[in-house]
């Protein structure tokens, strides 16, 4: 009996659940009882963070700096001078690239120190959009061929004729600065992590937190440290987009078999050559996935970066949504996706291009593409110069199509939204009422009525059953940190929304994924759809869901599910597709039906991978739930969002962000341990 219990997970879980229920109903609701709620012992953490930031930025380690405006010496903290120099450097690069595309006088102004301010003609003219499109065509052709040439140039042609050129170039200039920085930073930190176990150990928790923390929680600290503007947006983007690059670099380098290293050493490589000529090229595949991730993440941040001063598509999107212009917002969202696709394909093609060491070309042949590009740019520049006289109203359509002066499909999209509203509102409203009264409110009350002791028993018990004492303690410690704050009730509400959203997304994702994984074409198609929705700014969902479901928790849930189903679907498709076809054949020969094959063979084999997808689903759902504070929620997200408008919001925002991150990490620990164990049992890896 006892041994049976020891080996049977379901029995252990049911026992745990019974204990949980007993505690749930036996512990009375009493604010003074430690069994019901723990005292907020850690409530001073936000204050500490604020004081630290304040001292760093304004008090500690000051040096006198001469201020020409005041004509006196001012004490400036060294730390602030450092952060602000970084900010100025980033800003200089962003503006320089931006002025190449859009023209302007700031770059020349800062190079000459503003000495020629009076000379109105002294500015950087923009490269005409026609030349940029042609340039992309040539670049695409050089890197891969006609296919890429058309994708790249048509993408940007679309952006231009739809009148989104200016904001797109503003966003592009930000991405063109941040993506390489993320790449270099990620690659070098990844290499360091590979070389030294210590570095990897320290990096791991930092990466975990950076990847799971809601973006909004670190916006205020960035604002304090780096100031408002494009550079702040760049810093936020770097924090968010670098971790996957580091992880994938470490992963790729670790996978290299020792034979490769040995052969490198035998050929007489020194350490430097071994790294850059042998190891990194071998780990290329994973590093390339890293580059792809960096680009996706950079563009996913465009809207959020707009909260702290980044110009471009993200800002225009916010303005459009404020005016409830959903069609316009969707159009802007499509531009974000287009840049993502073009940059991704170009960078992949560039990285995959093999260097031809034996081609013996003269200067002319080597630089043919560049020469063509310069020639065409000059011609198009001249055309643009003269066409200025042709177009009336002051808009020169061959130089730069101004914002809002292009074609638009917004009215069609708006009509679509209206149609959905008119057709389905009645049914949706009934559904909404049902969901709120019978599911969401019941669930919320159940979560809020949970004594703290029973929560701990449930979570730590699950940790113990799945991963033994180690998991039990890790998970318990993570949750304890939240329980000792003033925000436990809000964390419970966040947890309730996350549970619901993850549950529904997982079911949706696994079902869609399983159906689409049946054949090659539908699998490819659904992965494309996943790519689209991962880069399409999630902000856009917020307004239509309010129109359909009002300012209620349902709206937040629908938005979260729409966004969080993406990873669930993606990982299911990938997991199922990776089941070897010989197994399919073997199963078919044993006479199983399609459904049996899916249930008893494919699903168990793909299970560990799907579990990792659920892990991602949780992260996505929590990000969207925090964003749901813009609709109106009462959870941790509401306070995180509110911190943007509080003068001392930095500390609270960071602390609550870490709480959300801890919820993710606790779930991550359980899921990963479980998945690893399954993998071992199945003999994968």
């Amino acid at each position, binding site marked *: 009996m006892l041994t049976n219990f020891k080996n049977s997970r379901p029995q252990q879980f049911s026992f745990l659940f019974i204990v949980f229920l007993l505690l749930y109903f036996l512990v009375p609701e009493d604010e003074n009882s430690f069994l019901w709620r723990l005292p907020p012992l850690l409530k001073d953490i936000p204050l500490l963070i604020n004081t630290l930031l304040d001292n760093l930025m304004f008090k500690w380690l000051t040096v006198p700096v001469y201020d020409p405006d005041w004509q006196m010496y001012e004490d400036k903290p060294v730390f602030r001078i450092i952060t602000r120099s970084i900010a100025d450097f980033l800003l200089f690069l962003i503006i320089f690239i931006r002025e190449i595309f859009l023209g302007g006088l700031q770059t020349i*102004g800062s190079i000459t120190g503003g000495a020629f301010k009076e000379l109105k003609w002294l500015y950087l003219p923009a490269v005409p959009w026609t030349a940029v499109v042609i340039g992309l065509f040539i670049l695409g052709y050089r890197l891969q061929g006609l296919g890429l040439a058309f994708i790249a140039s048509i993408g940007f042609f679309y952006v231009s004729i739809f009148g989104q050129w200016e904001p797109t170039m503003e966003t592009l200039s930000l991405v063109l600065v941040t993506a390489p920085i993320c790449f270099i930073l990620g690659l070098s930190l990844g290499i360091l992590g590979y070389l030294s176990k210590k570095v990897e150990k320290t990096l791991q928790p930092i990466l975990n937190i950076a990847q799971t923390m809601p973006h909004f929680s670190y916006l205020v600290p960035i604002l304090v440290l780096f100031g*408002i503007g494009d550079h702040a947006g760049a810093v936020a983007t770097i924090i968010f987009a670098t971790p996957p690059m580091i992880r994938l670099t470490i992963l790729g380098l670790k996978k290299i078999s020792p034979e490769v290293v040995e052969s490198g050493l035998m050929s007489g490589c020194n350490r430097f050559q071994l790294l850059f000529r042998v190891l990194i090229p071998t780990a290329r595949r994973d590093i390339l996935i890293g580059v792809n991730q960096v680009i996706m993440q950079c563009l996913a941040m465009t809207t959020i970066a707009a909260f702290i001063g980044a110009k471009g598509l993200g800002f225009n999107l916010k303005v459009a949504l404020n005016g*409830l212009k959903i069609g316009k917002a969707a159009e802007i969202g499509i531009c974000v996706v287009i840049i993502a696709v073009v940059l991704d394909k170009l960078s992949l093609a560039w990285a995959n291009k093999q260097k031809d060491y034996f081609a013996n070309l003269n200067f002319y042949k080597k630089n043919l593409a560049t020469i063509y590009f310069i020639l065409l740019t000059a011609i198009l520049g001249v055309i643009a110069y003269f066409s200025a006289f042709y177009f009336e109203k002051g808009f020169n359509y061959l130089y730069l199509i101004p914002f809002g002066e292009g074609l638009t499909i917004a009215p069609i999209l708006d009509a679509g939204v209206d149609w959905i509203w008119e057709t389905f509102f009645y049914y949706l409203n009934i559904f909404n009422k049902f969901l709120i009264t019978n599911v969401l409110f019941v669930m919320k009350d159940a979560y809020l009525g949970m004594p703290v002791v029973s929560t701990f028993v449930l979570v730590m018990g699950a940790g113990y059953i799945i991963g033994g004492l180690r998991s039990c303690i890790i998970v318990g410690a993570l949750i304890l940190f939240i329980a000792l704050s003033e925000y436990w009730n809000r964390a419970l509400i966040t947890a309730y929304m996350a549970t619901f959203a993850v549950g529904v997304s997982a079911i949706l994702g696994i079902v869609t994924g399983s159906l689409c994984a049946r054949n090659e074409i539908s699998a490819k198609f659904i992965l494309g759809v996943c790519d689209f929705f991962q880069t399409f700014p999630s902000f856009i969902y917020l307004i239509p869901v309010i129109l359909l479901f*009002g*300012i209620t928790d349902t709206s937040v849930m629908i938005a979260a599910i729409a966004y969080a189903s993406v990873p669930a679907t993606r990982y299911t498709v990938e997991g199922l597709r990776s089941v070897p076809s010989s197994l399919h054949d073997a199963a078919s020969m044993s006479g199983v039906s399609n459904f049996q094959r899916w249930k008893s063979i494919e699903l168990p084999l793909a299970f560990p991978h799907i579990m990792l997808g659920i892990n991602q689903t949780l992260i996505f759902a929590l990000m969207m739930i925090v964003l749901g504070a813009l*609709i*109106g929620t009462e959870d941790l997200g509401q306070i995180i969002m509110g911190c943007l408008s509080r*003068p001392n919001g930095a500390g609270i925002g960071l602390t609550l962000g870490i709480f959300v991150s801890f919820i993710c990490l606790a779930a991550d620990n359980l899921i990963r341990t479980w998945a690893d164990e399954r993998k071992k049992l199945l003999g994968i890896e």
Partner: protein
Amino acid sequence: MLKFIIKISVIASLFVFSSVAKAADPIRIPVLNWSSQIVMANVMAQVFEEMGHTAELVPAESASRYEAVRIGDLHVAHETWESTMALPFYAAMDKGGLIDAGSHNLITFEEMGVPNWVIDEGLCPGLPNWEALKSPECAANFATADSDGKGRWLEGPYEWHTEVMPNRLKGLGIDDLWTVKFAGSADALWAELKAAKAEGRGTVIFNWSPNFTDAAGFTFIDFPPYFEGCRLENGGTLETTGCGSPKGWLKKAAHIKFPITHPDAYKFYTKMSFTAPQIGLMADLVDSQGMDHAAAATEFIAQHRDLIDLWKN
């Protein structure tokens, strides 16, 4: 290796150079996400450029920008609403670095209210007098899926006035009929207006004037008059806390060094003072006439050339 060193040194020198070469420091003006504010920012930018300065528009958030003005990352904050932004405005002033550059020539009003069609359809007879809210039939017309049968007031984000509206319901003794829900953003308020109209359901939302909603017709509810200290958090009692909102100012904030670094621009900024119809026109040029923000600003300046020139000199 040599190439590598050259690359590093080029980046390093660029770094040093870019952080030193800041002489062409533009006047940095925050832009938020509503039309009139963006157009006014563009008007200022264009005037400053006429005066020979460079101006840069920086996307910002309505409340966090005061800290940015205080430490000099932004030079101005030109639309500061009393009831929603006074808190961060004065908090930044307390810390030092932000100065008050005067008010616009108008009185702002921010209050709970209903779109005009709610009154026209007779969803709550007796409005805009608040006593009409006492009737249970009225409250029932404003119920939503999550309001538990009560009528719902949709208040702005919690940070705007914290407990004022829930306290007001208690003070008026109608908290058994009505409940307050906090929207997450101004966007959510406008979406609610549109959704309620399409659905034909009554809605009470927090709104302000001048605002673009004025065009479609919006009526503020008449609550018992406001007086200093009537609210619970200002030392009032449960009897007085039902008072309405005060009429407010619309201020302009500036960084403390702005008058020294750009004296003529600062002079213009202090003289600049728009009226409610002018701000309405700014919003209208974009929202109704579909102009781009910069073009709307050019148009606005053209229409008000005399005024602008007066402020410039």
